[in-house]
């Protein structure tokens, strides 16, 4: 009887202890470190945005900025606008994106859905990885040597687009590839098991599942190429006038406008440089907002 009581008696009640001082110290160190790093990273970011916004705002508030070029405007006059450069940036960005996005996505689909494991696909993936890291100046020199020196075309916005294509296609391929790889194989199998052919499985099941990631990748690519300066310096000549023909003549874009006005010692030059910088940031931001919207609408839903 007594042994039974012994057994029924609860074991020693658990004694919880406070957090040891060693753990507290580690926790504190980590918290301080993380907060510090965050601050170090965020301060320059806000600083840059503030500088650009405060210095560029003056130009942007002038209505002429959005509707006029700098044609015939003297260096010291706070007149005219950046329409020619805005047009150039958007036109070159769109032309590049319209060519790069389909090519990049199709290559990504080939690599993941059709070529997986083949030698050709592995070589392509490897090449794409290397191309992603090619500096823009190298792409620009390559286009110059082939398009302009060998084929004999003149410098134009389109030559700039060609260099931007070399930069953008690998980025789109990579993000498509990575996004398609994370689509679970079970979804493909579920679709095959319903008697749905492979291409339809890819178009209707795999791509919609991966779409928001692909869109994000494309937008990062667009943002990057819109800010590229080196190819523009080598492959286009700056023009203060509005030129809508990307195949012929010199055309501006916002980075080139900044380079041009940076050497203008007048106050107007200062305003134009920062105005162009702020405009570029705003355009890229608008593209990103549009992309966020698209990926929201197409994202995988659970509720």
């Amino acid at each position, binding site marked *: 009887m007594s042994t039974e009581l012994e057994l029924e008696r609860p074991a020693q009640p658990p004694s919880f202890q406070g957090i040891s001082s060693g753990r507290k110290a580690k926790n504190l160190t980590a918290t301080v470190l993380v907060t510090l790093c965050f601050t170090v990273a965020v301060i320059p970011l806000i600083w840059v945005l503030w500088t650009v916004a405060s210095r560029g705002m003056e130009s942007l508030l002038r209505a002429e900025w959005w509707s006029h070029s700098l044609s015939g405007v003297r260096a010291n006059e706070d007149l005219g606008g950046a329409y020619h450069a805005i047009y150039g940036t958007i036109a070159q960005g769109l032309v590049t994106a319209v060519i790069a996005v389909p090519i990049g996505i199709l290559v990504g689909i080939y690599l993941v859905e059709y070529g997986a494991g083949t030698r050709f696909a592995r070589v392509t993936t490897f090449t794409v990885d290397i191309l992603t890291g090619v500096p823009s100046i190298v792409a620009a020199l390559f286009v110059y040597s082939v398009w302009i020196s060998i084929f004999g075309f003149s410098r134009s916005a389109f030559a700039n687009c060609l260099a931007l294509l070399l930069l953008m296609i690998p980025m789109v391929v990579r993000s498509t590839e990575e996004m398609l790889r994370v689509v679970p194989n079970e*979804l493909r199998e579920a679709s095959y098991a319903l008697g749905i052919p492979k291409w339809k499985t890819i178009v209707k099941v795999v791509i919609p599942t991966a779409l928001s990631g692909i869109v994000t990748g494309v937008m990062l690519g667009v943002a990057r190429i819109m800010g590229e300066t080196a190819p523009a310096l080598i492959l286009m000549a700056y023009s203060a006038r509005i030129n809508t023909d990307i195949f012929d003549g010199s055309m501006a874009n916002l980075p080139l406008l900044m380079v041009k006005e940076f050497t203008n010692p007048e106050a107007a030059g200062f305003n134009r440089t920062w105005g162009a910088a702020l405009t570029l940031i705003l355009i890229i931001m608008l593209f990103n907002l549009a992309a966020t919207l698209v990926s929201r609408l197409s994202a995988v839903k659970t509720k």
Partner: protein
Amino acid sequence: MAKRIDVKDLNIYYGKFHAVENVTLSVPPRSVTAFIGPSGCGKSTVLRSLNRMHEVIPGARVDGSVLLDGADIYGAGVDPVEVRRTIGMVFQRPNPFPTMSIRDNVVAGLRLAGTKNRQQLDEVCEKSLRGANLWEEVKDRLNKPGGGLSGGQQQRLCIARAIAVQPDVLLMDEPCSALDPISTLAIEDLITELKQDFTIVIVTHNMQQAARVSDQTAFFNLHGVGQPGRLVEIDETSRIFSNPSQRATEDYISGRFG
């Protein structure tokens, strides 16, 4: 509807690896056949080769023949897409299409094959969901995403999706292994109902489940590690679980090994 399957001398390979050897078995129409056996013995592989899903894996191939009412699904010129249309499959883990609503999930097979008639799709949707015992639970939220359902509901959604294309045969690869006992019961009841219209082959690790739902049971086993799996015996479920003809089967179902 509901056709019979005859498998003759089926050998299945992953690249050079001989996964399953010399399987010969028959599945009568409107019956449930259970595949049991230890892990890695090739029962899922055999199941996947019954609707040509096996060859989706790079390097995978089969030898031998699988006859569906006498027609060889591995015959020359047979379109695997057509075969999978006729022989549907439900997988181990529920896998509804994450970008589609419940309704779109159910009618995905028909819609992606080109059916556009909205009224017809709605009818199929309701009929399939009723067939999968899911209609009452989801009828008010057909436009909500399929991914928002519970695991058991998702699996029944997948069954509804599979039966919506009106297959002749339904293959189930451990359909309850990711589900709780109540959802499992719901699916087992469903299997018994579906038997009226479909020929069903189910892989299961749960021997009670095999005993509960199946009419005949096939026991698969391995010779040893690295050896191909093989079919030990196939017989009426009652006989397999009471008086199997092979010693290995008796050892397995009585828990002496495996």
